[in-house]
């Protein structure tokens, strides 16, 4: 009897040891957004982030609440005016190719992003970094061109991943990093195979293999999920959610994000150069109705602030529909009979046409006649966006400072509404150098309130992401992929 128990308990112990070993394969699709230009270089235009996020690490990464937390940097501190930052690096980390991770790799990786020759889209995110220096084997120092209190937030950018020194020429196909998974074979348009990195600095990951599969067609990706050929599809629609929710074979996560869709009225042209007209155009929107009609309830109302609902700097504002107020403002601005606007819409983003139609109805109540002009999706960013007076737009989540600076700063490259406001610029620069968190937060809130009073951009909501998975997937963090700890996932 005793021996049987002994054997049984040994078996149980052995079984639990076996469970702790990485096992099973996790499959996921990506949309091959860059076609045959796809690459494993994290800072290139064609980076397949669904792969780089699993094989490479950043210095700083977001925790489950979106705050900076250690990745390859274990601690950081700034000098008094936040112009020089010192980061302590993790020790004992090795790259997939066996080389040791150290400060030289960080210097190389960051300078590569900053190199104008590289033309990296990530460059603008950290353009304020002047120099990157290695103090010793495990310490680096960043010198900025001005004060910036939230530098760690910017270092969380999903593209700023560390690669081995001098690996720039080969990284596009090798994908060598320090992440929980290693590239076994790379085929962007087919199946990319990853294997567990047993030496990952936070311990061996939960699954043994990952397959990242290129499926361009959204419908085909859903079919693949329904047929159990992939385990996860991020960004399913409200309608598709209904299909998955009715089955025990699937799970759906809802994740509030900072991604938004909106309408732009160029602030530098008639009649939108009148701040009253701009305000009226935004007051007529019934945002909750837009959330319900366009997104099937899967969104969080926004008051024209690009800062997402989970961001620590988000301003809490109220913005109910106000038709009478809008009419009054329009009359004051010299449009008592309302006005006519051509709104340019493409199907590039499937929700744009619906959003435009709902807005058309709301605007009509205040005498604003919206004429929806259908334009081709091809060449939209080049020939319509930032060209026509009233257009649709979309942005993915960015930290508050980045969102406000990239889209609204007078000198910003992507200032899509041609918004030029010296007061606003001043608030932002003040916030960057303010080291006290509460005071800094107050400034960012003030900036968002200022936008609500003056901006030409209607941001009705922030999209809630729906992630569908098969029931066999466990421990998938319910956050955006930027913050998911892929090493924790297990499959049954």
């Amino acid at each position, binding site marked *: 009897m005793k021996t049987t128990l002994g054997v049984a308990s040994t078996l149980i112990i052995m079984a639990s040891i076996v469970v702790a070993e990485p096992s099973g394969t996790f499959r996921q699709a990506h949309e*091959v957004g*860059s*076609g*045959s*230009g796809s690459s494993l270089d994290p800072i290139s*235009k064609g980076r397949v982030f669904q792969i780089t996020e699993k094989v490479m690490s950043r210095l700083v990464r977001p925790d489950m609440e979106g705050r900076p937390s250690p990745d390859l940097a274990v601690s950081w501190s700034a000098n008094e005016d936040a112009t020089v930052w010192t980061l302590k690096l993790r020790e004992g980390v090795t790259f997939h190719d066996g080389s040791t991770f150290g400060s030289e790799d960080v210097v190389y990786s960051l300078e590569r992003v900053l190199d104008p020759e590289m*033309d990296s*889209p990530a460059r603008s995110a950290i353009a304020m970094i002047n120099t990157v220096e290695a103090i010793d084997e495990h310490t680096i120092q960043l010198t900025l061109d001005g004060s910036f209190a939230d530098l760690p937030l910017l270092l969380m950018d999903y593209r700023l991943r560390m690669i081995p020194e001098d690996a720039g020429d080969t990284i596009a196909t090798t994908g060598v990093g320090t992440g929980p998974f290693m590239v076994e074979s790379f*085929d962007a*348009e*087919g*199946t990319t195979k990853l294997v567990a990195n047993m030496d990952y600095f936070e311990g061996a990951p939960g699954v043994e293999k990952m*397959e990242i*599969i290129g*499926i*361009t*067609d959204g*419908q*085909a*990706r859903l*079919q*693949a999920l*329904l*047929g*159990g*050929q992939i385990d996860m599809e991020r960004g399913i629609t409200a309608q598709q959610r209904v299909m998955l929710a009715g089955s025990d074979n699937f799970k759906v996560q809802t994740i509030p994000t900072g991604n938004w869709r909106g309408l732009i009225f160029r602030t530098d042209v008639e009649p939108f150069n009148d701040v009253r007209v701009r305000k009226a155009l935004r007051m007529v929107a019934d945002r909750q109705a837009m959330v319900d009609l366009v997104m099937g309830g899967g969104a969080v109302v926004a008051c024209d602030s690009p800062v997402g609902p989970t961001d620590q700097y988000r301003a809490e504002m109220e913005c109910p529909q106000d038709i009478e107020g809008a009419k009054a403002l329009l009359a004051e601005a010299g449009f008592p009979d309302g006005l006519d606007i051509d709104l340019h819409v493409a199907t590039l983003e499937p929700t744009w046409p619906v959003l435009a139609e709902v807005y058309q109805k709301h605007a009509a109540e205040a005498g604003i006649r919206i004429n929806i002009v259908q334009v*081709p999706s*091809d*060449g939209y*960013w*080049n*020939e319509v*966006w930032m060209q026509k007076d009233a257009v649709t737009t979309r942005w993915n989540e960015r930290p508050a400072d980045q969102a406000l600076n990239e889209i609204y700063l007078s000198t910003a*490259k*992507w200032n899509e509404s041609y918004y030029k406001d010296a007061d606003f610029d001043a608030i932002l620069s003040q916030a960057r150098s303010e080291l006290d968190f509460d005071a800094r937060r107050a400034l960012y809130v003030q900036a968002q309130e200022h936008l609500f009073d003056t901006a030409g951009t209607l941001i009705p909501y922030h999209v809630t992401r729906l992630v569908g998975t098969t029931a066999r997937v466990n421990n998938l963090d319910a956050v955006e992929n930027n913050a998911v700890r892929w090493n924790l996932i297990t499959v049954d």
Partner: protein
Amino acid sequence: MLLRRLGLGAITVWLVSVIIFAGVEMLPGDACTAFLEREAKGKLLENCREDLGLNRSALTRYVDWAGSALQGDLGVSANGQKQISEMVGYRLRNTLLLAFGAMVVGIPLALFLGVVAALWRDRPVDIFVSTSAIFAMTIPEFVSATLLILVFSVWLGWVPGIVLTSANAPLVEFFPEVMLPIGVLTLVMTAHILRTVRSSVIETLASDYAQMATLKGVPYWQIVFRHILPNALLPTINVVALTIAWLLGGVVVIETVFNYPGLGRMMIDSISDRDLPVTQAIALIIASVYVIVNLAADIMTMLANPRLRTVHLRQG
């Protein structure tokens, strides 16, 4: 005669290349704006256009391309900078696998069902076969494809719904994933051929010589096999040829729905990337196949039909 047909074929292929070139040229945006998206501004855009030679006039680019295509060099793709001949090779093979699979299953099935339907005309068998054929023909492929995925992959779980195999994997690895796409193609193809076979057999049944044979007392099955089938099946050669050509071009939709790494999906992707060289190359291949298959069908019909041969001899 053969030479004249070949010449006409060459002109067709050339016309197709001009039309495709002009068509893609007329779409808004180019390879650079498609690749750079929001970054497509100022210096970045200029550099990109410089690199790809897009700032030259459309005519120069066409002449350049046509010149090297004549020498068998299809050029390099616009954004991946890979040799197109290399890229196309596996894709063509995969599409041929799809087409071949559908032909092997579809043609015998269509002939059999068509003959059966005709011989038992207006009986339940015929009504069932003919009605199903109309359904198979009229339901768009993407609908029947989605239905088949729903039934066989999602509900029954017999075969995988979406093809996940890489383009350059060995052919065996495409099984069983390739079965559903072949099924959908077979469905549409069988329906088309079947209906031609049926009406052709019915027509022949009513012909003088068939009636004569019946009056002479030739046994029914002997009439069917000796007189009816050889005559009735001749016109179907052309339909089969057209269907084969359609298989190569028309798989675009099927390949997209099933994520199948063939020529069709490559063409769609290259159009959205504004990858003109790749689009051109694929259009050229498909057009050539069309021309060759049709030519082959005409020659086969001629060989199989003594009357056409003699007409030609008398004229010649």
